[in-house]
């Protein structure tokens, strides 16, 4: 069988990955999954506030990515594009969701969520877990559009410019949403 030659840029790994996917290289999507799965899952988890639902959302997001990856044109970073797909999908699904989100902080362990920081001693881990649950609970009370901005900034570490690209808004709006989200979070944390 004749080998298919994939025209790679060599200088843009994102576009090369997409090009390999376009030419049917299944390894390309596997690489993309490995690279972005933690990011997509955590984003879904923080937006949905529910581990089981976050798992479903992550599956759907990767399905969408698989379907539309060929359309990625390299005008933004692949990471930004993946975040945009994930945010849009979560937003659409969560707005349709009838039942209230089951907060993650109530039963992380029962739901089998594995928190990754294994280096701490049991006592400080227990304290950290308590604090994490409290923060996660408070985050779930922040308005969705502010929560999205805060999660992208403080949990995912995106710059204002990247957040503006992901959310499709101006930088001024990003700045305002992050400030409002943090302020809402502060109010909720102080109340609890």
């Amino acid at each position, binding site marked *: 069988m004749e080998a298919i030659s994939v025209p790679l840029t060599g200088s843009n790994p994102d576009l090369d990955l997409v090009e390999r996917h376009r030419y049917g290289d299944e390894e390309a*999507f596997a690489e993309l*999954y490995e690279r972005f*799965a*933690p990011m*997509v*899952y*955590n984003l879904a*988890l*923080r937006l949905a506030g529910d*581990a089981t639902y976050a*798992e479903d959302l*992550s*599956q*759907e997001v*990767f*399905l969408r990515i*698989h*379907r539309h990856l060929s359309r990625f044109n390299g005008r933004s970073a692949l990471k930004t594009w993946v975040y945009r797909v994930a945010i849009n999908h979560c937003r659409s699904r969560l707005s349709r969701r009838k039942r209230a989100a089951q907060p993650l902080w109530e039963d*992380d362990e029962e739901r*089998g*969520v*594995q*928190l*990754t*920081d294994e280096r701490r001693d049991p006592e400080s881990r227990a304290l*950290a*877990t308590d*604090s*994490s649950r409290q*923060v*996660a609970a408070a*985050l779930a009370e922040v308005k969705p559009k502010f929560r999205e901005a*805060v999660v992208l*900034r*403080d*949990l995912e570490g995106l*710059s*204002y410019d990247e957040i503006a690209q992901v959310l499709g808004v101006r930088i001024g709006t990003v*700045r*305002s949403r*992050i*400030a*409002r989200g*943090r*302020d*809402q*979070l*502060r*109010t909720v*944390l*102080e109340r609890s």
Partner: protein
Amino acid sequence: MSQDTTFDDMSTLDRKMVERLSAYIDGELPQAEQDELENRLATDEALRGRLASMRKVVGSLQHLERAAPPPLLGEQVARHIRLDERRTTLFDRIQEAAPLGQPSPLMALLGVVLALAIFIYMLSVVNARRQEQPTLPIVFEHESMIVAPDLDAEQERVVELMRLRWIDGAWREAGLGLADPTTVLSMRSPEAADLVASVPDLEPLLTFEQPVMIRLRSQVVRFEPAPPP
């Protein structure tokens, strides 16, 4: 600015200040604004308090532990992709975009009833339209009157000047209302003879055995047929 005030309760000026504090923490504040803010922070204790509480919030978020994706997520994604590649019907795509759930027997029954109701309604409309058609079909005027029992497309195309329909026992010009004021003319009368003589195209009316109604010079005229010889 009080530390307890929420964003929604603040003045526009204070909101801008909170936005600046937030951007300052992120290092996203332009240099000029940053200098101005630092000058103010040096003298405004409440603002320093606000900055400290916001830093604390940001710190608590940044220390939120990240969860590892479930171990089986990758396999589940791969399985969904394989299924998706097999899935080609439009219904599947719609179902995925807006899940309809499992169809219940009640919903299926309602669907059948609805389809039946639409079918019966369409049938009644078609029947009603058929009954409107004259038993003898349409009479046209072209160069001379043509009785067209078997109307076809060609006749439809060439015949345009006048169109009569058999409605309620009389040939009527299509579109002529029954309530239109009507002048009745007997074919035997001198007026009818004059009229027919002035409009040669009307001559075939003389051969009609049924009443004919037409609009002629803005007047609706009913021609009564001449009695059989």
